[in-house]
């Protein structure tokens, strides 16, 4: 029998960089096919081929008949809906939330060509209800830009789900979502599969794959290296994914407990309605700040970094008053931060790895303001080596790296130094297990060497793997503060709810 | 550009100076409509910018004050469409008379006729409207006269059968009139016109300097250049100096101003002669013509203001450094007996 969509020997290169080398994939109605692969394996590229973004070699056939997917429009007509990895590739700032929800319908004339903004509202609400997005009218009418990252991701999902396509493609849809939101998404996916929709699901989160996938395909270096039926054989799947390497998932027994207080917050108010919070971060340990989306992690991080100074409250750094009005002030005080949104927060045009890495520390690679190309290049190479970035050389543009490798660069450039405080806001978004492991090791080294490391994440796994001490943040208030050895996953999750 | 009219005339004007004397004292009994109160008129200028129009406007203002006109000035900054709008506005204002200073025939004629139909007297300066608006009074400085004066001088200086250059732009009434004479003189003296360049941009002098400079490289052996508009002449002069040809090439222009005098009298200046009228005096003359027209004493439909020749030598001999010195040395510039009447206080610019 022939399956719904058949991909045969799909190839794709960017310049001389061959990313896909003959990929075969089958998608069946009502089946969830999960794709696992290291950063740069080519997952997003497969998706972009299938959704008509890239030209490609090889054949795609639908119900046995060969087809060509030459544009996103064609893909849609063929019943392929994709939610791409980058949220910024989906939402359209400047248009209302409603218009964004209905944008596909607007383009395909499923709404009247002369529809007024008002007349869009009912349909938009209907769509939002799929994911129980309880937005107010004001929000529906307002600019989509006023939504949080998470809400924007949910909007894009709703937009795709409502179309009940033949094949639904989701590229790391949960990397910005809280657990509850993710669960809701899975329920909907289950409903859709019952209705015969085929789903192509890309994620780094093994638990999610375990939960929803009917089939697991592993991609490495642009080739399929393994296919699995549930229950999935994780150890061998991870081998396929990472080549000979073996990702250690062993118990941790290396907890560090810092002694000297470095950064202390007194009466800081994170969110308008939240109680003031008092907390101290210590050198020599990794403090994980765990909280759902919108809990205030980014507020906390950008407050301490001076990117968005706290309105209420005070801070001391090594017992002297510390109130940075700008990141540059914070950096002078040796407080560093890796921001949450990689594209908007760190990537500069087509800059090479070397340039991107040296940007925060230009004085170090220049004398009397004149830059030293050599030492700059070395900085780049250093980052590549110590973080195992997949790249030819420090001259490669960061933008051409895969998501995970980009993240290694932007985290790595800060860890060359030995800061007093290192803040990482969602540093593992879209980072595969291998890459995450590398990052964790280095981060912990920095802590061991005497920095106070603060790691914000809405993914408990990440906290458990990287942190010594955990703070649970709920609506801008600290609900739980303890060392991991003295608590359990259950206790932490409870502290989320019992507030 | 100095359309600083509403600020009341000559006081802020630089080039006519403040020491003007009223020659024929104001006649005691003025004819209608001047007998009761100030008379409102409008001046609709195509462009008030540049030394020439500045002095023109200044003179007009001084004369207007003496006669008792209340003047509203419109300056279109060389934008013909804007001038049309200005004219409409002026007509709407219900003034007794409108003076139209330069502009495009096709643009202004219909509007001039509108004005005349509405009983507004119209005096125009330097637009060819004889056929299309016969009822308006057409005044002009005699461009033919100016061109003849200076080209005769040029012929005397360089003689026949020589190579000459020409800087001009056609399609602008006065320049066209000067062009006619140029053609005549070229054939008459059997000059060979090696180049004819020129462009009318918003920085005329600089841009034409570029053109002439290039032209001079392409054509060596030119012995004189005629640039019948002082902005052109300025450009020409600086181009000649660029190429260090001041000894071999003479420049001839039309019009004069403080800046021009400085350039002409500077050591080794190639600009040896220009023909001119005093823009101040002309401005005043046009206003006087309007006064006569309103009083019903202007019979002829055309008034021409004669020009005079000013040579480099003359300037040097009388050590003239600015317009005032020039006016002292050349009383003829004052045009006091053109469009004059005993009841009109006429001006002498010193």
């Amino acid at each position, binding site marked *: 029998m022939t399956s719904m969509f058949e991909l045969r020997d799909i190839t794709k290169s960017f310049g001389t960089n061959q990313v896909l080398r003959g990929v075969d994939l089958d998608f069946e109605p009502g089946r969830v096919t999960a794709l696992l692969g290291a950063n740069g394996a080519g997952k997003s590229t497969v998706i972009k081929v299938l*959704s008509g973004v890239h030209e490609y070699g090889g054949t795609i056939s639908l119900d046995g008949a060969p087809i060509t997917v030459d544009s*996103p*429009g064609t893909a849609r007509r063929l019943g392929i809906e994709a939610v*791409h990895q980058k949220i910024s590739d*989906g*939402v*359209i*700032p*400047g*248009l209302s939330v409603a218009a964004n929800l209905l*944008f*596909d319908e*607007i383009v*395909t*004339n499923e*709404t*009247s*060509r002369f529809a*007024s*903004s008002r007349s869009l509202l009912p349909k938009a609400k209907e769509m939002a209800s799929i994911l*129980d997005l*309880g937005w*107010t009218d*004001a929000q529906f*009418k*307002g600019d989509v830009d*006023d*939504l*949080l990252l998470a809400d924007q991701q949910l909007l894009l999902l709703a937009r795709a789900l409502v179309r009940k396509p033949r094949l639904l493609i989701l590229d790391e849809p949960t990397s910005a979502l809280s657990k*509850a939101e993710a669960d*809701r998404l899975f329920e909907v996916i289950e409903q859709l599969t019952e209705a015969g929709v085929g789903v192509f699901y890309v994620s780094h989160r093994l638990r999610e794959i375990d939960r929803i996938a009917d089939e697991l395909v592993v991609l490495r270096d642009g080739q399929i290296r393994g296919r699995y039926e549930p229950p999935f054989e994780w150890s061998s799947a991870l081998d396929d994914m990472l080549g000979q390497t073996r990702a250690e998932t062993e118990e941790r027994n290396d907890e560090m407990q810092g002694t000297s207080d470095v950064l202390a917050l007194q009466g800081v108010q994170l969110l*308008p*309605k939240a109680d003031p919070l008092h907390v101290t971060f210590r050198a020599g340990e990794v403090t994980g700040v765990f909280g*759902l*989306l*919108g809990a205030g992690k980014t507020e906390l991080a950008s407050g301490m970094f001076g990117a968005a100074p706290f309105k209420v409250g005070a801070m001391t750094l090594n017992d002297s008053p510390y109130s940075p009005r700008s990141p540059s002030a914070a950096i002078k005080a040796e407080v560093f931060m890796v921001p949450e949104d990689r594209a908007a927060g760190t990537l500069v045009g087509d800059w090479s790895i070397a340039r991107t890495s040296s940007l925060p520390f230009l004085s170090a690679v220049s004398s009397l303001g004149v830059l030293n190309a050599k030492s700059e290049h070395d900085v780049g190479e250093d980052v590549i080596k110590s973080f195992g970035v997949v790249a030819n050389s420090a001259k490669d543009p960061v933008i051409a790296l895969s998501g995970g490798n980009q993240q290694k660069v932007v985290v790595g450039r800060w860890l060359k130094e030995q800061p007093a405080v290192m803040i990482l806001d969602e540093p593992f978004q879209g980072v595969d297990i291998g890459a995450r492991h590398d990052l964790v090791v280095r981060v912990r080294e920095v802590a061991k060497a005497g920095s106070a490391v603060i790691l914000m994440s809405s993914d408990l796994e990440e906290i458990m793997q990287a942190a010594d001490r955990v703070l649970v943040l709920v*609506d801008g208030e600290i609900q739980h503060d303890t060392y991991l050895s003295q608590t359990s996953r259950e206790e932490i999750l409870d502290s989320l709810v019992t507030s | *550009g*100095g*359309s600083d*009219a509403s*600020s009341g005339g000559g006081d802020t004007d630089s080039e006519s100076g403040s020491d003007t004397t009223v020659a024929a004292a104001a006649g005691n009994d003025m004819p209608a409509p001047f007998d009761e109160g100030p008379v409102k008129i409008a001046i609709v200028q195509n462009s*008030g910018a540049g030394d020439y129009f500045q002095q023109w406007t200044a003179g007009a203002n001084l004369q207007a004050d003496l006669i008792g006109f209340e003047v*509203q*000035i419109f*300056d279109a*900054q*060389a*934008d*013909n*469409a804007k001038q*049309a709008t*200005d004219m*409409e*506005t002026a007509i709407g204002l219900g003034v007794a008379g409108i003076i139209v200073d330069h502009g495009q025939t*096709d*643009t202004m*004629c219909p509007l001039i006729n509108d004005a005349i139909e509405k009983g507004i007297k119209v005096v125009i300066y330097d637009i060819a409207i004889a056929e299309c608006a016969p009822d308006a009074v057409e005044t002009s400085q005699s461009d033919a006269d100016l061109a003849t004066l200076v080209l005769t001088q040029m012929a005397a200086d360089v003689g026949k059968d020589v190579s000459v250059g020409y800087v001009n732009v*056609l*399609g602008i009434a006065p320049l066209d009139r000067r062009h006619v004479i140029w053609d005549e003189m070229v054939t008459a003296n059997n000059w060979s016109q090696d180049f004819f360049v020129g462009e009318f941009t918003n920085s005329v002098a600089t841009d034409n300097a570029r053109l002439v400079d290039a032209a001079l490289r392409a054509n060596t052996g030119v012995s004189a250049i005629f640039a019948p508009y002082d902005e052109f002449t300025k450009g020409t002069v600086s181009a000649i100096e660029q190429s260090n040809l001041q000894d071999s090439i003479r420049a001839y222009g039309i019009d004069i101003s403080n800046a021009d005098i400085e350039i002409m009298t500077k050591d080794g200046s190639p600009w040896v002669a220009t023909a001119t009228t005093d823009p101040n005096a002309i401005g005043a003359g046009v206003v006087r013509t309007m006064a006569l027209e309103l009083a019903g004493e202007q019979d002829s439909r055309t008034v021409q203001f004669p020009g005079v020749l000013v040579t480099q030598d003359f300037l040097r001999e009388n050590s003239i450094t600015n317009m005032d010195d020039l006016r002292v040395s050349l009383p003829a510039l004052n045009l006091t007996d053109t469009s004059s009447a005993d009841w009109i206080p006429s001006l002498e610019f010193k």
Partner: protein
Amino acid sequence: MSTTANTDTTGTKGLAPAATRAFSAREFAVRYGFIIVTILFYAFFYWTEPAFRLETTFFSMMKFTSVVAITGLGITTAMTVGGLDLSVGSTAGMSVTISAMTMVIYAQSAPLAVGAVLVGGLLIGAMNAFLIVVLKIPDLLATLAMMFSIQGLKLIPVDGQSVSSGLILRDGTVAPGKFTEGFLKLDRGFVGPVPYPAILMAILTIVMWFFLTHTKWGRVMYAIGSNPEAARLAGVKVGLYKAGAYMISGVMASISGLILSSRIGQGDISAGASLLLDGIAVALIGTSVLGANRPNALGTALGAVLMGILITGTTIRGYPFYLQDVVKGAVLLLALVFSFTLSRKKHRHQPAVPM
């Protein structure tokens, strides 16, 4: 539970508060500041200058405004797709020459002249689109190059001369035709007391406003201007829409060219020179009207009206032209302070410097 999380997260930052904030002094200034400035200026001139009160003054002001406004509408359209059209001034100038040639040199009828001009504008737009969409040249550069080219090209057939009846042709004969009465009516005609150009301006403004805000095409154009990649991924034929926007811009420019031509009554080669900067100015001012923070037709028209009020008012007060420039600049600045300094909104569709 995630739902509750969402609702309260937005509670803390969301739009409900924004709605109430809308009545804070600051928000008020942002929304209405610009309109108030316009009214104040109008009132000021109205009380101080009797001549300004005249109906004739008002309508000749509107005539003046119309050209800038219509050009501005074109630029606005290009701005909605994230571009900018620097060729509008030259296009208007070209239209003046084309119309003059058609009627004067080829002695054709007014309708034909109008047709020729509009087609001309459409072609320029298409050419811009070709450079931008097919040859992938950034908007600013492509239209700048076009600006230079047109400026020169339009003068070749007329040997760089203004075309007016009685023109001597290359073969020495006199040009047979002239500007027809009908054509001259374009600028000089009235409906009651209202001049045609003012009516045209009103109509085009409303049409463009409806097109941009109430139709699919307008929405998609805004989308392209704000996030082209997302639009493309959603299946929008981005190139097609960009092309459309530039063609509209070209046609608008040629329409203002028609009005100019009819106003000047001859193929003035310098016509349209000042139009580009004024057009951009009003289109940019327009983005600040009613706190829209994006290019929009109504704002542009209002910007043009303010510009008209200032020019006319200061002229009647007899300010020298340089003081008029100062006032122009100062008011532009004021409008900008309202929408950018005071407004908290993010701004988009600012023509980025394209590298």
